[in-house]
C-alpha cells in the first residue's frame, strides 16, 4: 500500500532543525507529525513503504521564499525526483477530471491545488494522505468516504505497519452490513 505526502510535510522536514525550533509554527503540536514524516521517508528509502507525491509538490517546494542555496535545492531535487525516496505521480487527464469531480460529484469544495493533490492520491490508489494543513484536514471525513484517509503522519497505520514491533490491525468499525442482488437467471 502507498501513502501520499503533501508539500507541507517536505517543507516542515526541511525546516525541522533542533537549533531552529522556533521556525516551525505550533511545533509542540506538530513535532510528532514531523518526526513521523522523517520515519516515513526513511522507510521509503529502505523499501518498506511507498511514498508518493504529485508533480505539483515539486513546484510548491521550489517556491521557497526564504534564502535557499544550491545545496538545499539539490537536496530537494534528490528527495523529490530521484525516485529513490519519493515516487512522482505525473499529472494526467484522469487526475484533473477526478479533481474536478470532487466538487461536481461529492461537493468537496477545495481550492484547485488542494483538490489536485487529493485527486492524485485517489488516482494512484493511496491509502493515506499525509498532511498537517488544516485547509485539507477539515475535509477528512468527506474524503475518507472515498477510501482515502486524510491524516497527520503520526496517525498513519501504514507507517505503523512497516515499523517493527507494532500492531497494525485496524479496529472494526461496526457490525456487518449487507447488500442483496438477485442474479444469474437465464
Amino acid at each position: 500500500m502507498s501513502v501520499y505526502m503533501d508539500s507541507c510535510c517536505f517543507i516542515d522536514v526541511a525546516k525541522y532543525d533542533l537549533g531552529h525550533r522556533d521556525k516551525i509554527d505550533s511545533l509542540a503540536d506538530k513535532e510528532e507529525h514531523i518526526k513521523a514524516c522523517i520515519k516515513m521517508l526513511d522507510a521509503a528509502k529502505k523499501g518498506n513503504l511507498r511514498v508518493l507525491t504529485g508533480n505539483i509538490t515539486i513546484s510548491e517546494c521550489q517556491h521557497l521564499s526564504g534564502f535557499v542555496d544550491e545545496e538545499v535545492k539539490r537536496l530537494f531535487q534528490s528527495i523529490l525526483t530521484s525516485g529513490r525516496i519519493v515516487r512522482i505521480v505525473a499529472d494526467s487527464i484522469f487526475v484533473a477530471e477526478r479533481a474536478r469531480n470532487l466538487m461536481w460529484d461529492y461537493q468537496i469544495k477545495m481550492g484547485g491545488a488542494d483538490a489536485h493533490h487529493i485527486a492524485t492520491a485517489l488516482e494512484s490508489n493511496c491509502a493515506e494522505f499525509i498532511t498537517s494543513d488544516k485547509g485539507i484536514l477539515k475535509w477528512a471525513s468527506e474524503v475518507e468516504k472515498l477510501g482515502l484517509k486524510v491524516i497527520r503522519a503520526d496517525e498513519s497505520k501504514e507507517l505503523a505497519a512497516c515499523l517493527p514491533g507494532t500492531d497494525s490491525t485496524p479496529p472494526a468499525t461496526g457490525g456487518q452490513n449487507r447488500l442483496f442482488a438477485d442474479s444469474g437467471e437465464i
Partner: protein
Amino acid sequence: MDKLAEITAETERFLRMIVEDISRRATGKWIARDFENNSVDFTAAYISETITPEQIQECRQALAYTMREDTDIEHFSSKIRRSTLLQYAKIAKPIAPDEAVHFGLFDLDKEQVTERHILSKERSLEIEGRLQLTDRIQYDGSAQGTIIALFKGNNPHFRLRELHREEWFPCYFSYNLYDKVIHALENAYTVVHVAGTVLASRTERKPISMQVKRIENAEPYLEGDLEKFVGCAPHATGDSSTEKFIRLIRGHEELVGNGEETQ
C-alpha cells in the same frame, strides 16, 4: 455448464467493482445463497464490516443506475468507473442472442425484490461498442520510471516501467533522442523523466503508449541525502508559517478576496 460458470464469475467481478466504486477500502465478500432448484437463479449478498449503511444505499443506487436499460452510456455517471460498466457488459458475453441475464434488486428494508432489469446480448454489445469508440484519449504528459528494454530499427522505442504504478508501457522516440536514451541506460538503476504525447485508455485509466519529446535523467540520490535533508532549510518559508506559506502559494488568499468580504 461452462457458460453458467462464466456468467457467475463475470457477475461476481462486476459486483465487487461496483462496491469498490462506492468505497475503495470496503472489505467484504459477495456470497451466493437461496439457489433455486433446476435453475441458476440465486441471491448474491454482500457482507462487510467496514461498509456503512449509507454506502450500502449508494451501492444499490449504483447497481440500479448501471443496470437500467435506458441509461445513457455517452454521459455515464463519473462516480462509476467505465471499467465497471464494461464488466457489466461482459456478463452477457457468453450468452446467445435469444438469451438474457435477469437481475432483481432487493429493497433494503423489505428484503424483497422491488426492481428488475434485463441484460440482453444486444445491450451488452452496445455498451462494449460505445465504450470502445470513446476509449482512447491523447494529452501531453510525463512519467517517472526506469527503462527496462530498448528496441531499435524502424520504430525505435523503449519500455518505461513507471515507479509509482510498477507497470510498463512503450515509449516511441525519434533518433535525435537516441543519445539521451543510451545515456539513461549507462547505469542500470538510472531513473528518467520522460515527457511527450500520451495515448491513454479511459477505461483502464492508464497510458497505452507515449511519443517522447523529451527525456532527462533524474537527479541522483547521494548516500546521506535524506539525513542532510532533515533541517537543511530552517528558514525555508521566511517569516511565514508553513501553513500560511502553502495557503499563499495555492492562491487561497486570492480566492477569499474574490469570493468573500475580507477584513
